[in-house]
């Protein structure tokens, strides 16, 4: 453990001090003996494996749940938060990994929702607008307050969340995996915003699995392992692999290169696919792509440029025109279920919305989509025994951290939910995998394991359509990269020929070119 108590900085008052925090859930010790000190005016990163207890700790600090043991001290004062509103009153705000904005309300309405300013009981929009404008100016955010949130991209939505938290008077900001959904350019903008906040004396605590950015922007780093804080360090005292070692307790596996050539059989053939969008502009326009057996085609792009519509159209969930052929079978007019049977599998963009039944046990979640498979049937009934058996296999093979296969899905940490969703898609041995952000929210160790799974399935002939905001993942896995911008494929690139920076400029539409 390397701790700094340098004189000038060490003198800063503590914004947050957690000591001896413990929190149990049935069958799980989510937090125990946690000690965390966050200096005022700093960016403090929290890293750790999936299920290490990071989100649990932050929810405790934000008053969403009460700790079983330990104390919370904010700005030198001991606190007993009974609800988030207590925490907000103490100047703490939290931006959740899954945004909580109302799509059909405007940006302004979303920001004031829950803390509506009023003058003698009358909604005072004018002063709210002034206040928000000045907050936005101070953090360098440029948002149109009068458009509905549904028109915003992910990065902008996140900024709305941040402004909302600031509008409620937060001086200590908690961000749970804020960069998981952002492309590098947006990440830079986010950190610029956070730096300004910190310069103004605010304090930022953020959770991330992306160690490079943690090392780049944070002042202090706390490492959590198995429910407790195990180390405190600073970016200048450690490097990426050292940090990973602290997190997982062992060295990172190095990714294996490609050993088999791309096959010749066309597994997925997309011809002139078009999806209608809002206001007459197509969400996906005239996309034609071919993926061969053993090939990984990466789709690069800022979220909201048609990737979601493309994937859901391939699955027959979103209506589209054009043709889709899977393994030589034209599935254009087929149902979603028939497309899965033809060999598709899907790792969804949003595991909560599209992937999981949160209150149902894991084995029912793992069964979802496979319930028509005769292996999981006994006549007209569900064969619970084989379904549970199969779930146990997924749990072991993908390292899902859970007390048992009957645990409800909501009790798993975000990364472990993701592992289950990934496992469910891969155990069907699909011929085409549509993978959207397959390692979103997964820690570095488990990420390598998921990549290995995808690679070995690929070596066995699986074709992959990979959508990812993680450029390292895209460049490392893909055989070909197609850039998607404004619903169209604007470039097709060879990952060996380009750098992450170049790819970034393609994604924002700064460079457009047919092929390279």
């Amino acid at each position, binding site marked *: 453990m390397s701790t700094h108590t340098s004189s000038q900085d060490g003198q800063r008052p503590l914004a947050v001090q957690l000591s001896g925090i*413990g*929190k*149990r*859930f*049935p069958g799980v*010790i989510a937090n*125990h*003996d946690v000690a965390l000190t966050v200096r005022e005016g700093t960016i403090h990163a929290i890293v750790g494996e999936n299920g290490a207890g990071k*989100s649990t700790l932050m*929810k405790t600090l934000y008053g*969403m*749940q*009460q700790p*079983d*043991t330990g104390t919370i001290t904010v700005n030198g004062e001991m606190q007993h938060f009974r609800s988030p509103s207590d925490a907000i009153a103490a100047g703490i705000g939290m931006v*959740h*990994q*899954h*945004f*909580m904005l109302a799509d059909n309300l405007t940006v302004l309405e979303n920001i004031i929702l829950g803390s509506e300013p009023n003058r003698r009981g009358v909604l005072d929009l004018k002063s709210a607008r002034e206040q928000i404008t000045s907050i936005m100016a101070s953090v360098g955010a440029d948002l149109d307050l009068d458009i509905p949130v549904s028109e915003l991209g992910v990065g902008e939505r996140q900024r709305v969340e941040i402004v909302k938290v600031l509008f409620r008077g937060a001086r200590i900001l908690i961000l*749970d995996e804020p960069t998981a959904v952002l492309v590098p350019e947006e990440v830079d903008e986010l950190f610029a915003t956070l730096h300004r906040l910190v310069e103004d004396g605010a304090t930022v605590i953020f959770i991330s699995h992306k160690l490079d950015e943690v090392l780049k922007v944070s002042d202090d780093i706390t490492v959590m392992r198995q429910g407790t804080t195990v180390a405190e360090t600073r970016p200048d005292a450690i490097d990426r692999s050292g940090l990973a070692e602290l997190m997982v307790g062992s060295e990172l596996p190095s990714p294996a290169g490609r050993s088999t050539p791309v096959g010749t059989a066309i597994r997925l053939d997309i011809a002139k696919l078009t999806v209608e969008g809002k206001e007459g502009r197509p969400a996906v326009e005239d996309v034609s792509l071919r993926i061969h057996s053993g090939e990984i085609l990466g789709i690069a792009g800022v979220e909201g440029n048609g990737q979601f519509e493309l994937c*859901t159209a391939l*699955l027959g*969930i979103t209506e589209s025109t054009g043709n889709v052929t899977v393994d030589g079978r034209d599935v254009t007019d087929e*149902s*979603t*279920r028939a*497309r*899965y049977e033809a060999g598709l599998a*899907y790792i*969804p963009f*949003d595991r*909560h*919305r*599209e*992937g*999981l*039944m*949160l*209150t*149902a*046990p894991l084995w*029912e979640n793992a*069964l*979802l*989509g496979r*319930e*028509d498979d005769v292996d*999981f*049937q006994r006549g*007209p*009934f*569900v064969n619970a025994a084989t379904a549970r058996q199969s779930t146990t296999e997924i749990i072991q093979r993908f390292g899902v951290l859970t007390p048992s296969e*009957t645990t*409800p899905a*909501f*009790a*798993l*940490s*975000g990364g472990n939910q993701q592992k289950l969703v990934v496992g469910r898609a891969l155990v069907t041995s699909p011929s085409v995998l549509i993978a959207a952000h397959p390692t979103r929210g997964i820690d570095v160790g488990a990420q390598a394991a998921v990549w290995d799974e995808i690679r070995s399935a690929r070596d066995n002939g699986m074709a992959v359509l990979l959508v990812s905001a993680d450029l390292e993942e895209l460049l490392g896995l893909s055989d070909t990269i197609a850039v998607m911008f404004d619903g169209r494929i604007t470039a097709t690139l060879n990952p060996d020929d380009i750098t992450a920076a170049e790819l970034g400029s393609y994604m924002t539409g700064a460079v457009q070119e047919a092929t390279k």
Partner: protein
Amino acid sequence: MTTDAAPTGGPLAKILTPSRASGLRTSATTLASSLLAVLIALTISAALLALTGKNPIDAYSTIIQTGASANKLLEMMRRATPLIFSAVAVAVGFKMNIFNIGVQGQYLFAALIAAEAGSHLGLPLPIHIAVIMIVAVVAGAAWASIAAYLKVSKNVHEVISTIMLNYVALSVIQWLFENFFRDDRDGGLNVKTTLLPDSARMPDIVDGRLNGMFIVALIVVAIFWLVVYKSTFGFKLRASGFNATAASTAGISARKMTVIALLISGGVSGFVALQSVMGEAFAYGPNATPTEFGFAGIAVALLGRNHPIGIVVSALLFGFLDSTSAELQLALVPNSIVKVIQAIIVLTVVIVNEATIRRMNIRTAERARAELAAGGAS
């Protein structure tokens, strides 16, 4: 979407799909909260009685005394029978967040068609009864199919369509009845369809007190349990209720499930009035066929938390309360107090359920704290 690990769903979804966090403890708590709701309702009703100048103790002792006799217990079962069917019909929909408010229209339509069809047939006893049941199920499903059609092709919310269809059903039934099915051969004193022949009459289990429909109700509940909780189809149904987007992403067609759920719901509705049609009035008649079981079924399903056993117990409770109304009147207590108690039970169920979920979370935390203090943290 809220946070990393919070269950989704609106407040209504929370009530309808009890948290399954820790199996047994949850069912025990669910039971306790339903009991608590009943107790609270009785207390509030006692206060209401006292306010109106009646002695609540007298009223309640009348209720309890009447229940003590074997005959009253039979009456309780008799009255529970249509409630069980109605509640199962509602619960099938609730399981996938479909709100079939139209059970009333569906079962009355089914009763008319089944009674009329049954009177024209000449079949041996068990077959005749079975055919009438099938006709009733098909007719109930047919009426519900209108709402299903409106939902999937015109995107009309089923709450709106089924409520409206209740009114439509009443008019259609009246028109059919008055123009085609009315049989005045007994001089028009008792306005009904043609009386069913003996072969179409449901045998009594206990002479003149309880007929075989009670057994049929228990069988339907058992089938409901098997289908919803154990079958592959039921898995799809519940998956659509848990998370409709995830279910359709997994290839479970929301349209198909909606249609099937509404049809099953309507089909089960078909049974509701058969106790009267085949066992008591032996015909359909505007004055003979009870009309109040549609909404009562919603209340019973809510109190029973859509669970098979819960539904049976709740229906028996409601049946019991209903069975006391005659005695209450004799004791000069307004028998509408029974309806008041039932209404308050349903309201408190909804409120108490929320409160227990919260209490349970606090208790879990306390238990954990105790364990931690005892040195469990390692």
